[in-house]
């Protein structure tokens, strides 16, 4: 990402009335000018969230400490995706760096966890939150398929297990006063009424999948990371964020006309029609195109073939 592009994006967002920016990667903290970029966005009064794995070199961490120690937590925060130390352990060196990062910037950090298997554990996250004084919010994402890539992800039939497992941590969430934050792709029907009641009391009522709008260093825009190869456009083709949203809503509608959601029951589901549930992630829906007979719109078919998504 160059300064010119960063300033263009900042102007674009500000003109669109958008005040939140997330810096993602790869690993954004590896960018040589990341400190300056963050300070610039803060100077422009954006609310900045940096997604990181927390593995920062000592020099980079010192820079963060020097320049962000006085930052308002409402204006600058980090989402640190943490891995289970038993099931997917980091190397000792990496663990040490993550721990140092958390001990220095803990109050600015929201822990994040990507669920990629049904027997996941969250205990270590509660410990981390307490030990390092992290923000009492846990961002939970489901690993999604990247159509055409064959990566490991949670399948529709495994969703119920994931939801049940998540609810099994209710006592810990309540005891530690940690609020779960669900990323897109959790279908409402996979939670029981009791589970939904708990989530509702915590203020969670949306189970939709909407465009994250990722902008790349070469100024392409796409719906979200799993759909990074699907119908990318150049940012320069748009005048505002509203136009980009409109573009991706159109794409989403086009797909949803063909297949409503990740389950056959999504077709005609009231929650989806009322906009409460997205019928699972759009990438999961698109994957059904890949796996099924080509009965779809030629426009979608063409795009799948062009990006070699229908492997």
């Amino acid at each position: 990402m160059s300064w010119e592009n960063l300033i263009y994006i900042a102007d674009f967002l500000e003109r669109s009335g958008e005040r939140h920016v997330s810096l993602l990667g790869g690993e954004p903290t590896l960018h040589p000018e990341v400190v300056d970029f963050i300070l610039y966005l803060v100077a422009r009064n954006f609310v900045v969230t940096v997604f990181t794995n927390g593995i920062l070199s000592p020099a980079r961490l010192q820079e963060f400490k020097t320049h962000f120690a006085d930052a308002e937590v409402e204006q600058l925060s980090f989402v640190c995706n943490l891995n289970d130390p038993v099931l997917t352990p980091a190397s000792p060196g990496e663990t040490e760096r993550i721990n140092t990062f958390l001990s220095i910037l803990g109050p600015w950090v929201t822990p994040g966890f990507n669920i990629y298997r049904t027997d996941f554990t969250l205990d270590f996250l509660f410990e981390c939150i307490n030990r390092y004084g992290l923000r009492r919010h846990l961002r939970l994402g489901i690993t999604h398929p990247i159509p055409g890539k064959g990566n490991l992800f949670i399948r529709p039939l495994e969703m119920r297990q994931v939801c049940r497992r998540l609810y099994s941590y209710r006592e810990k969430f309540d005891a530690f006063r940690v609020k779960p934050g669900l990323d897109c792709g959790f279908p409402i029907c996979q939670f029981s009424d009791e589970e939904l009641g708990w989530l509702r009391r915590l203020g969670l009522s949306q189970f939709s999948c909407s465009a994250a709008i990722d902008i790349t260093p070469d100024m392409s825009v796409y719906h979200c990371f799993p759909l990074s190869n699907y119908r990318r456009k150049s940012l320069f083709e748009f005048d505002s964020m509203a136009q980009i949203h409109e573009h991706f809503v159109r794409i989403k509608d086009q797909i949803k006309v063909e297949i409503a959601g990740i389950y056959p029951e999504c077709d005609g589901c009231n929650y989806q029609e009322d906009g409460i549930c997205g019928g699972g992630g759009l990438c999961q829906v698109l994957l059904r195109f890949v796996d099924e007979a080509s009965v779809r719109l030629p426009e979608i078919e063409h795009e799948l073939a062009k990006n070699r998504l229908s492997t």
Partner: protein
Amino acid sequence: MSLPRIVCPHNQHLLRTFSGQSVAVRVDHWEKAAEAADDVCSSGNELFCVIVDTTAPLDEIVLPDDWKQIPLAIMVPTIGKFRNLTAKLKAWRDFNLRVFLGCDDASNRAALRILSSLGIQTCAVFGSGKDDWEALSDLMTYAVLGQLPHASIDPFSFIATNYQPNAWVDWGALYFDDPKHFLHLDDQGRVALSRAARERGDFVAQSLAECGAAAELPAIKHRKRTFMQYFLDNHACSFCPGWKLCLGRFSASVPQDNGCSGFFLEMIDVSRQFKRLNVMPQDKQVWRP
């Protein structure tokens, strides 16, 4: 007729040799700016601005709060590290200052955008012969047609604002390089028509007193007519479509056909667009004495 503004070094003795003039005083270190401003005022002259022409990067400069009223032209080679500047910039927005930066390299071109987008007035210095005219076009387009209001990046903002389809735009004064507006003195009070002329010892008078009515000074008259020579010589600049903006300014420093013509042609187009976008509906005129 009064003299143009005087650009002179910070020298108390020299300042006392004339009075009643508007003076831009030069210092080579930012710490001397306030003292220079005081000396101009106490010499019976009026302060136009303090020119801080320094080799230090912008991030090393400290401007105390009580300097807010001092008009400053800060000429620096680079901005240094943005991270060291960011805390200062918020306060600097309230200062009466313009930052001059060379445009030879990409980092300075980016710096001009950064400063402008954060509300600091700037001026791009180009024409060294190493210019990337395409990159300058991008900067110029941002300066004039940028999506959001931002501080001006001169000369582009100045040119676009003052553009007239049937007239030249002379913007040399932005760089204190226009004898109609500025005369340059050296330490001994000798008068030159530009900074470059002063540096090479090309003086038109030994003192301001010798200048008399500046408009009548033969050297200034001659300088005003230098544009004619391009046409008499059938110089490539004389039939360049960008002439009315550049006025042959870069004919000596810039190799021919290296892109300046295309740049100024685009500048004309951008200026036209700017004028079209900024046509205000005519207000109802109510009589006023």
